[in-house]
């Protein structure tokens, strides 16, 4: 059933390249955190605002009365606050960088996935959708994501955030090993 071909995939067809050092980028995010803390009193984070916005999409699915009555969204109602506008900014900035650097490109199935699971777009879309469900449920249960826990919480030396980082990386390593195991 499984193909045993070891395909070496060259990064062909990539027009633009970015040569920024990851340490420079990390320093930039660190300094951005200073501004977020001191200037706005609102550390970098994504999923808290994301779940506020999700209530918009929940209304047509479970009905707006159910959304209004839900105790989670009562504690976290949809409002256009700092976090939600921050979310709007992320794709804008990424788009700007991609256009300027020439790294914008349509991607249906990423190379690493294609190497292991083949070129099926449907297969990749189903996995992305399911992975999306699991990652967001986990983020809300843990109270944050790679940004809110990983970076903002990590830099505050928060116990919760370092537990998050350790468990997240350990689990990721195991799952990745299973998923990319040569069949």
């Amino acid at each position, binding site marked *: 059933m499984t193909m045993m071909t070891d395909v070496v995939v060259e990064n062909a067809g990539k027009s633009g390249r970015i040569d920024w050092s990851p340490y420079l980028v990390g320093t930039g995010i660190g300094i951005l955190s*200073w501004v977020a*803390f001191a200037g706005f009193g609102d550390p970098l984070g994504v999923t808290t605002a994301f779940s506020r916005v*999700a209530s918009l999409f929940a209304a047509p699915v479970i009905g707006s009365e159910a959304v209004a009555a*839900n105790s989670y969204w009562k504690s976290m109602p949809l409002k256009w606050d700092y976090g939600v506008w921050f979310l709007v900014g992320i*794709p*804008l900035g990424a788009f700007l960088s991609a256009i300027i650097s020439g790294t914008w490109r349509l991607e249906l199935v990423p190379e*690493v996935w294609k190497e292991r699971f083949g070129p099926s777009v449907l297969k990749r879309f189903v996995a992305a959708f399911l992975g999306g469900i699991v990652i967001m449920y986990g983020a809300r249960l843990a109270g944050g994501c790679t940004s809110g826990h990983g970076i903002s919480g990590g830099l505050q*030396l928060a116990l919760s955030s370092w537990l998050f980082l350790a468990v997240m990386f350990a689990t990721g390593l195991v799952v990745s090993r299973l998923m990319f195991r040569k069949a």
Partner: protein
Amino acid sequence: MTSLMSIAGPILMGAVFGYLLQQGKVTSCNVIENQFRLRDFTVLKVMGTAIVVGGIGVLLLVDTGNTKYYVKDANMLAVALGAALFGVGMVVYGYCPGTALGAIASGSVHAAVGAFGMIAGAILYALSFDWVKAHILNVWALGKVRLPDITGVPDGVWFAALAIGAGAFFVWVEASEAKAKRAQG
């Protein structure tokens, strides 16, 4: 003016964040997957540097009264379970929530499909919240604690150790990568 700033400010902050994520290549699914496969250390380089640089600055800002800590609750069981699910989701999806938003804007269609999964995940969490709150969030709930509080080891020592540890690790990674590159020719 204040209302304009309360919108333009966060949009600008988000845009700088998204710009940096894209410049750092961490909006690439390949880069994230290869971090967990230990073939590409970009994600750890970016996060490690951000934590050390950000943390030392924020520590000084707190000490000089310019900001305060915004620590999340250490509901140990919920954080551990959530982080485990997060690790599974991150490898299957190939993104984390923030990098996914950047990836969508740089042309990744599968990231956009996964974003609808993330919306579904957020809805499922809201629907299960009452049960989770009663049974999971309250287990080993230690509150908003920081490592210096529970260990008695001061902040400065933590950051010195983190900076030295991360620095040594990055030197080793760079040396191994240079060696692998030479071997490749």
